[in-house]
């Protein structure tokens, strides 16, 4: 519940800061309407502490038995017959982040692996910090399926009671995690950019409103506390050679009837844009300012000369300059290359949240006030249509 006490002086400070337009000043008193999400921004800005949010304590579940930090292991197809699947890098990033949480809590870090056939996966999982690997090997786990995978995870969580569980915010993780959270009635926070322990609880930080504000989220009353984290957000730890994890084999009762969605066809282009920009060291990206598809093509040359991959803003993709698989940003791919060189991208927040973790950002744009310059290390104010062709020439000469 949110309440405004008599202390309210009608100063109006809370009205403009409300992200949801939920406050009206009625008879010089702040009044909340139904748009209120109880986010608490107004409480922070109120100079006279007139606004209070009371959180009713729901009947506390017994949470003392929940221990251990779990990481969902995601496998991806390689297109290679002898090693058809490999562990996705985001899993190692989650183990790296999970290791710190587990150490702080004094609990085990466990990887959860569902597969039809183990190819010695525990070795890498151990080297990246897992103490234990809960492994379910079953023929029905030959490919990801929402119903089958969520039922296995729910079973494991119910019997082993972890306190925290992390998933990659991938197409698979974002399909699986909410299903599990919904079944178990536990909290799930999407796309966390930082995880920490605060008073024994998992403090999950995430951007909201297209990255315009940050929110810290807690799930104090339910376990496990679950988060998804995008690839390339958590820093990858150095693997410890020879560090081994204990394998705990688990069985699952599965049959075909659980598979309510069937795969009729799967087409993967192993050289496709998404896979490549996600792991690229150098990305040369362009936006609306590139004007035409032909001019945009010059970025391919720059990127080739710098040993990189081409990225594109949402606008450039919408205008047909580049395929959607190359889109960087909130509705595209999150990237963190060593170099992000971008031309004619003004920097809508949705784009910025997808590339701001890059090591060095160099932006070229004709508008000196373009928001892209707020995240760039180097900004060049100039006309991309003049600069790009000349840069192609200069780079060619240099080679």
């Amino acid at each position, binding site marked *: 519940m949110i309440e405004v006490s008599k202390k309210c002086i009608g100063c109006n400070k809370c009205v403009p800061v409300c992200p949801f337009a939920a406050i009206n000043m009625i008879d010089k008193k702040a009044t909340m309407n139904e748009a209120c999400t109880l986010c608490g921004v107004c409480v922070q800005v109120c100079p006279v502490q007139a606004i209070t949010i009371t959180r009713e304590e729901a009947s506390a579940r017994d949470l003392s038995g929940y221990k251990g930090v779990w990481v969902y292991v995601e496998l991806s197809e390689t297109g290679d017959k002898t090693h058809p699947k490999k562990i996705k890098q985001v899993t190692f990033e989650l183990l790296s982040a999970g290791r710190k949480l587990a150490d702080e809590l004094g609990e085990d870090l466990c990887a959860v692996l569902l597969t039809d056939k183990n190819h010695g996966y525990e070795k890498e999982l151990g080297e990246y910090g897992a103490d234990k690997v809960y492994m379910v090997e079953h023929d029905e786990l030959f490919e990801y399926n929402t119903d089958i995978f969520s039922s296995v995870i729910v079973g494991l969580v119910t019997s082993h009671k972890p306190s925290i569980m992390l998933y990659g915010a991938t197409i698979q993780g974002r399909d699986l995690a909410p299903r599990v959270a919904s079944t178990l009635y536990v909290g*799930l926070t999407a796309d966390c950019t930082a995880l920490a322990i605060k008073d024994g609880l998992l403090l999950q930080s995430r951007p909201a409103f297209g990255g315009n504000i940050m929110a*810290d989220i807690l799930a104090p009353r339910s376990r496990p506390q679950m988060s998804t984290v995008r690839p390339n957000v958590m820093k990858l730890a150095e693997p410890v050679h020879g560090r081994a994890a204990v394998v705990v084999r688990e069985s699952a009762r599965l049959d075909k009837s659980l598979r309510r969605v069937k795969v009729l066809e799967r087409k993967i282009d192993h050289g496709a844009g998404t896979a490549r920009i996600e792991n690229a060291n150098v990305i040369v990206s362009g936006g609306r300012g590139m004007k035409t598809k032909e001019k945009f093509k010059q970025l391919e040359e720059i990127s080739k000369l710098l040993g990189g991959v081409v990225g594109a803003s949402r606008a450039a993709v919408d205008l047909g300059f580049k395929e959607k698989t190359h889109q960087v940003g909130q509705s595209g791919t999150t990237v963190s290359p060593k170099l992000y060189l971008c031309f004619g991208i003004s920097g809508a927040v949705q784009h910025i949240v997808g590339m701001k973790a890059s090591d060095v950002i160099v932006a070229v744009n004709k508008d000196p006030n373009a928001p892209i310059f707020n995240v760039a290390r180097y900004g060049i104010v100039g006309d991309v249509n003049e600069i790009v062709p000349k840069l192609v020439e200069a780079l060619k000469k240099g080679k």
Partner: protein
Amino acid sequence: MHIAVMIKQVPDSTEVKINPETGTLIRAGVPSILNPYDHFALEAALELKKKHGFKLSVISMGPPQAKSVVQLALALGADEGVLLSDMAFAGSDTWATSYALAKGIKKIGKVDIIFCGMQAIDGDTAQTGPGVAQQLGIPQITFCEHVDVDGRRVLARKQIDGGHELLEARPPVLLTMIMGKDYAPKHPSFLAVNGSLKKPFHVWSAADIGAEAQYLGLKGSPTQVDKIYPPPQREKAAMFSGSGQEGVEKILSVLRGENFLGE
């Protein structure tokens, strides 16, 4: 068949600006819009309605002003609109929202296909769709680009890393849609807007849908916002100006300085 589309009214986050001094959102003049992903979901559903003559209901949850997005969906061709609106919903996280929407859909009746956008642009969680599917105990296909119905088969093309899958499910099923190239958001004509005012529109409270208070709002939400704050500020960029050759030289010197040109 009966299709339901779940839609949400959101602030147009491309219009949201930040006050650089206080780090707070500048909300003035930011319009409320139909979540763009939901608009694609609606178009996919409308196409099926047109092709097969299915009935189409839209459902939203939000404050009374969210009525406008439901009205827009009606003007675009939906047959029936529902808005779940009640102070008891305030503060709901994705779990509690999924619970309420699932209750609302049950009240609509026997629904065969449920559509929604893969995520809303204000929260970006992509959790509500799967949450509703689980609450209803039905299968889901997330991140769809295209959906077709062939008899009792629902066929969906789903985006996956570096490619796509063609998936099949039997109704009831829930589908979440990306903003793919197969659908384009349309605007209603003036006549359609007028005509939509006569279509059935229900506003339901928590009691109307039989939702239990303990699962709603802040009390029913497993997650809680601990704090909201401005994102950390970055150091200012080193700025250079210069079109043409001058700009090129700057870029080259920056790339050289950061060791991206090799030797």
